[in-house]
């Protein structure tokens, strides 16, 4: 019996007690961009906070915040974020930076997406040609953006050509690559993606495709255990000049990925 009690104590003792660990739920698109690998060491150096990233979709990130399982979230879906703060789960919403989405598709471009001038027009081309399109289908920020674009284009995406995979950005890109399908991806994930196959970037640059990231600390009034002080120090750092330099200086294949736009 003593033995089993010992095991329970041992399991409990494995709980990290270090004061300066902070759990931050971020989106797959942010994590896949590789920017985290630049920012995290700089954050540790500048603030002493060891940020532990939970890489999930925006929907799940906000759920983690609601339950108090993370101390703050960094996500990109404005409507859902504002609702999150309005419901009292977060203290406030602070815009940090934006990147943009692009439309990726097969090189021969059967739906002539490359000829479009607007994102909605490109989507209309895909629907018109009934060309295979892979949707994230996972309630993530990217998925919500995609649904918003279909709506703006006045199209209800249904049919054999529209394939919702219900997975993260990488898995969805793998699926698109395997099926030679069109897909809406964030620029960073695409540039870092290692299995491009016959896919290529066909459309980008429309301001409708901009993707705003915002930082929301979880409300300590609701969850007294969250590390509110550390979350605030992280926010100060994320909006600092040091953060601006690192975020804007981050490039892949010569392309700048993020634009810092935190108001101070």
């Amino acid at each position, binding site marked *: 019996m003593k*033995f*089993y009690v010992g*095991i329970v104590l041992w*399991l*409990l003792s*494995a*709980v*990290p007690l270090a004061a300066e660990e902070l*759990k931050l739920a971020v989106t*797959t698109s942010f994590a*896949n961009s590789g920017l985290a690998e630049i920012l995290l060491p700089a954050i540790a150096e500048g603030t002493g906070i060891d940020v*532990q*990233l*939970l*890489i999930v979709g925006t929907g799940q990130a906000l759920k983690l915040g*609601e*339950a*108090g*399982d993370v101390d703050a979230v960094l996500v990109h879906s404005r409507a859902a974020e504002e609702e999150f703060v309005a419901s009292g789960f977060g203290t406030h919403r602070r815009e940090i930076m934006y990147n943009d989405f692009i439309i990726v598709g097969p090189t021969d471009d059967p739906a002539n997406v490359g000829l479009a001038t607007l994102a909605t027009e490109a989507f209309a081309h895909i629907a018109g040609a009934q060309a295979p399109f892979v949707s994230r289908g996972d309630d993530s920020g990217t998925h919500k953006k995609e649904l918003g674009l279909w709506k703006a284009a006045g199209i209800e995406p249904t049919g054999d050509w529209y394939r919702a995979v219900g997975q*993260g*950005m*990488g*898995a969805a*890109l*793998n699926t698109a*690559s395997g099926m030679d399908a069109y897909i809406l991806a964030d620029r960073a994930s695409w540039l*870092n*993606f*290692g*299995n*491009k196959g016959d896919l290529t970037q066909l459309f980008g640059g429309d301001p409708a495709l901009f993707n705003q990231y915002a930082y929301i600390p979880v409300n300590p009034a609701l*969850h007294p*255990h969250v590390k509110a002080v550390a979350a605030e120090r992280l926010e100060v750092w994320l909006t600092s000049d040091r953060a601006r330099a690192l975020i804007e200086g981050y490039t892949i294949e010569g392309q700048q990925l993020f634009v810092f736009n935190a108001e101070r």
Partner: protein
Amino acid sequence: MNDILTGMAEALRLILTLDPTLIEISLRSLEVTVSATIIASLISLPLGAWLAINRFRARRFVIAFLNALMGLPPVVVGLLVYVLLSRSGPLGVLGLLFTTSAMIIAQVIIITPIIASISHQAIRELWADYHDLLISLNTTRWQRIKALLWDGRRALLTASLAGFGRAIGEVGAIMIVGGNIDHATRVLTTAIALETGKGNFALALALGFILIALAVVVNLALHLLSKTERSSLW
């Protein structure tokens, strides 16, 4: 095919250069799964023996139930443990979610039925041989269980290793309860899932080969240490 060859070369490179990240996640894989296997064995080996020597009304049902639980979907176990350990769940105050402890708990739940079922089967056969002797010596129930566990140790090692094998390659549950946090809860299987998501198939495969090699090494080491294949013992 090309990815497989690149994967093998990459695996070799990672091992030969003693890549620090690889060593870190491999050790964490071992830490989680070895802990889970030890805890699950401590629960299920005595349980298997107890089920073998006791006759009670619900015995058949309990055994059938244990056998059925061998097929527990890890993702469901993960979700259950997650809901229990979440800050808004009943055990939330422990703050165990997204720690290696949570991963160990999930794996213990997954492999306990496997070890219990296999050890029950092995001990039942041993009990048929030992029954008359142990009864005539007027042994207590606990003494019988101890005797059976000791004399059946080789078969029980196999039972524990079956549990280890299931746990070391498991990804569904530990991804959910551990969160795949770099330098905290990332292990070989979740790293493989992550690299696959990034389209880095060669690196993902390399980690896969290393995972397989690790499982083989652990099994070999245990068999050598316990001398199960001594030539004098047929």
